[in-house]
């Protein structure tokens, strides 16, 4: 990871609009075959408006920007909280914001927030990262 971060600095990345194929692809790659993510009759019977994305799909999408910003060697913590569902047609914007930098004698620790918002600027995931180098 670079050492040139400043507190308040932000990085963003947008994907989408996503669709059911994204949820199906994630189901196949991850092994999460809960029908609520791809079986429309099943979910509408259960009372949902439509299928919705796996929380871990969103956490995975956000991890792409985390990897780009910090690199995987530096990553020591990645915490995510799924605060709203992701629906077919949503566009997802991930933002990483540098919150704190602690420079020690041998290593520097960086704390950042990670947020994923949809096209209506509603948070669907909040979270945090700690990166140390």
């Amino acid at each position, binding site marked *: 990871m670079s050492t040139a971060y400043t507190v308040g600095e932000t990085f963003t990345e947008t994907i989408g609009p996503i669709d059911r194929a*994204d949820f199906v692809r994630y189901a196949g*790659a991850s092994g999460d075959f809960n029908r*609520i993510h791809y079986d429309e009759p099943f979910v509408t019977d*259960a009372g949902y408006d439509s299928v919705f994305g796996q929380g871990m799909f969103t956490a995975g*999408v956000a991890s792409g920007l985390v*990897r780009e910003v910090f690199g*995987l*060697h530096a990553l020591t913590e990645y915490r995510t909280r*799924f605060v709203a569902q992701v629906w077919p047609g949503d566009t997802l914007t991930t933002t990483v914001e540098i919150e704190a930098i602690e420079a020690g004698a041998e290593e520097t620790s960086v704390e950042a927030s990670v947020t994923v918002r949809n096209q209506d600027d509603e948070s669907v995931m909040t979270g945090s990262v700690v990166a140390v180098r």
Partner: protein
Amino acid sequence: MPTRPLAELRTQVGETRRTATDFTVERGKVAEFARAINDPADVYLDEDAARAAGYETIPAPPTFTRTAEFPRYVPDGEGFELGFDPARVVHGEQAYEYERPLYVGDTLTGDTTLTDLYQRDGRDGGTMTFAVLETVFTDEADEPVLTATGTSIETGRAISESDAATEGER
């Protein structure tokens, strides 16, 4: 509501069970996973690119251990039986603590502890049941690689808003 009473489920809190064995990080699975999360970066697809970026070999994405739940890695009858209704389960939170990057060629063992299980009244969604499961993944040298902690919620009804997360505050 779970199919088993809360008191019975709670007797499992604190127990640790082996939930993944011979969980080998395979190159093809890493590539497909990277594509599925919309991050088909060179380091996940190409060994030369990974080495050029300072990795030992191709690393796996930060959330890759989700794939440890594929049947081939899961020992028979060893997991926790929570009795949650799949149509009512949502994922509340997920956290990872890493000792090092996970690499293609690693073979991991996963040991999961049910660290908490509790119920809360939803805003208008009936009773919500929360289960917190912490899994430590170790490599062939028995060294820890990462710890994954997930919170699963069985909701009282279909939810289309953010009540699962806000009511998860405690």
